[in-house]
């Protein structure tokens, strides 16, 4: 096996773990964790390809950095939403957030 394969497989493992969490958890905080894991897996993928395919390392790092910054913004907004939901109903279970159900 070559090195690129190893790192891409690592990123795939993280991605799969993230998808598992996203599908099976009902706690909003855990869902946020899963999203973070998925985003991190993506940035690892970018980094691995940049290192082992002869591309511009600077560009690859910038793109991964943008991914990270985006995820930071997402975490800030998501946490504020979760705290607000907790204030309104005293629970962060996404199954119970069904006010909009017809």
């Amino acid at each position, binding site marked *: 096996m070559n090195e690129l394969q190893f790192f891409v497989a690592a990123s795939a493992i993280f991605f799969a773990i993230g998808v598992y969490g996203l599908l099976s958890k009902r706690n909003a905080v855990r869902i946020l964790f899963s999203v973070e894991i998925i985003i991190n897996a993506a940035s690892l993928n970018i980094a691995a390809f940049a290192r082992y395919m002869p591309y511009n390392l600077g560009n690859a790092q910038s793109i991964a*950095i943008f991914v*990270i*910054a985006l995820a*930071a913004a997402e*975490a*800030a907004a998501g946490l*504020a939403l979760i*705290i607000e939901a907790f204030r309104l109903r005293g629970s962060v279970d996404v199954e119970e957030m069904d006010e909009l159900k017809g």
Partner: protein
Amino acid sequence: MFGPGQGLYWFIVFALLALISGLLFLIIPFFLAPRRRSAIKEDTFEAGQLPPGAKRIRFALQYYAYLLLFLLFDVTIMFLFVWAYSFFGEGRYGFAYPLALIAVLLPPLIYAVKLSKIKEMW
């Protein structure tokens, strides 16, 4: 990447030393110090009073905005570090981008600081 000639090797040695000395200090009192447990001693310490009410309390979120600002500035300053690194490159990249970044950050800063001063808002 990894060998006795490199700094990283010695970094790991240093970290291990710190870990070992910390754990050593943690282990020593198991042998030296007495351990006589009692209910009052292990109760929560609240300056001599009996702790009233629940142990964990809900607290006001008054300065939460500062934490959000911290996250925002953290990311931006990492960009500014790159700009500062290339500052002496004959002004190749100019001052437009950092100026724009800082200008973009100012409104949320003012908003958050203003809000955090009013206790009733939280």
